[in-house]
């Protein structure tokens, strides 16, 4: 299911880049590597990641952020200690990205309702996939009149999964931060605990499902 490389296609992490000076690179490599990816979600949890605000600065002497909404790289350049994932699994590209990420993360954490149980995209799970596609593309009330009714299908498009799955039904997930989205407070609490060797502990007053 990997991206076909015999096509005229270059991913951003494959582009030539000027290497960092060796000292900066060595300092960065010595830090705890943290990454966050998004699958089938709304990127709201990533906004909560940004809501860590200036509190993140206090961690930056210990933490290097690789793939995330701050950096916009498509693959993590090397192994990560902590990987956050938002969004559920809804298509073949999600599965590929998630499996690749799992192979390269020591600790993996589901962030938000979509990652934890499917969330809003999983509302389609009570309807057969065929009916969903017909409603969206064939009998859509907003379809352009007279236009040819086509359900998109092309080798470049990821294949939709029959049901939206929570991440832990596809790969092993170590910890869960529920919420839609969880607060930046919850994410910084978890990150700070791991960075300082304390382990996962999300107290009930910080836990939320909405």
């Amino acid at each position, binding site marked *: 299911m990997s991206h076909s490389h015999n096509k005229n296609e270059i991913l951003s992490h494959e582009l030539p880049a000027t290497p960092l000076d060796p000292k900066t690179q060595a300092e960065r490599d010595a830090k705890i590597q943290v990454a966050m990816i998004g699958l089938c979600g709304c990127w709201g949890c990533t906004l909560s990641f940004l809501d860590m605000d200036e509190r993140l600065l206090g961690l930056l002497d210990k933490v290097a952020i690789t793939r995330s909404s701050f950096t916009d790289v498509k693959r993590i350049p090397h192994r990560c200690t902590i990987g956050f994932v938002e969004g559920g699994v809804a298509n073949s590209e999600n599965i590929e990205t998630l499996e690749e990420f799992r192979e390269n993360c020591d600790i993996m954490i*589901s962030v938000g*309702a979509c990652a*934890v*149980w*499917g*969330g*809003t995209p*999983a*509302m389609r*799970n*009570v*309807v057969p996939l065929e009916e969903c596609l017909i409603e969206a593309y064939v009998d859509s009330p907003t379809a352009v009149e007279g236009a040819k009714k086509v359900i998109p299908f092309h080798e470049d498009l990821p294949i939709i999964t029959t*049901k939206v799955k*929570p991440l*832990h*039904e596809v790969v092993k997930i170590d*910890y*869960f*931060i*529920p919420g*839609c989205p969880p607060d930046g407070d919850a994410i910084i609490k978890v990150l700070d605990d791991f960075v300082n060797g304390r382990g996962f502990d*999300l107290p*009930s*007053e910080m*836990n*939320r*499902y*909405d």
Partner: protein
Amino acid sequence: MSVRVTIDGQEIQARSGDNIIDVAAQNGVYIPSLCYVKGKPCLGTCRTCSVKVDGSVMAACTIPVREGMEIEVNDDAEIVDMRKALVELLFSEGNHNCPSCEKSGRCELQATGYEVDMMVSRFPYRFTPRVVDHASKTVFLQRDRCIFCQRCVDMVRDERTGKKIFSIKGRGTHSSIEIDAELANEMTPQQVRHASDLCPVGCIIDKTQGYDDPIGQRKFEIKSIKDRALEKEHR
């Protein structure tokens, strides 16, 4: 008559005949429950209040205390995890989409999930299709969220005839909560509000009520379900 029991090794005096949930709460020990309503006959349907009584697992709301009883609530890791598993089962059995629910922040199931430290259900989420019932003019039934506690079945009745307004049809996985739309249409606004407040989840929704309280000022955000349960009792 007074009896002596122990809760998590602590010896306490209790009034004979009081059930374990009430006795524990009087002594500052919170036992989660989703069907029990203080002062009403116990239903014993949700089992979320499971504790160990002299080594056996029992639903605390169904058991009156008696002399010498040894009750384990939080001392025994197995029973703590069992209560958590019971809550997780409810979350995986129905479709509990908190972000899209009017009851969020006022929901006892959600608040109990926080109390038992549920982050995710260990059981596969089932996504069973369930049909919403809009027939009545006063309430609608969002069946995705029903946990079959039977509070509404037993405690909401037509004021004129005393007939039940809500009922459960079918058995096992085919069970569904039903409403007598004609009787429901006769409900006063106060009774509608009572029924929707009584529902521990967002299944019975008052058609006149929406997302009334802003996030951060909702019922269980102001005071947790545990604090509320203990406040009523703790002397």
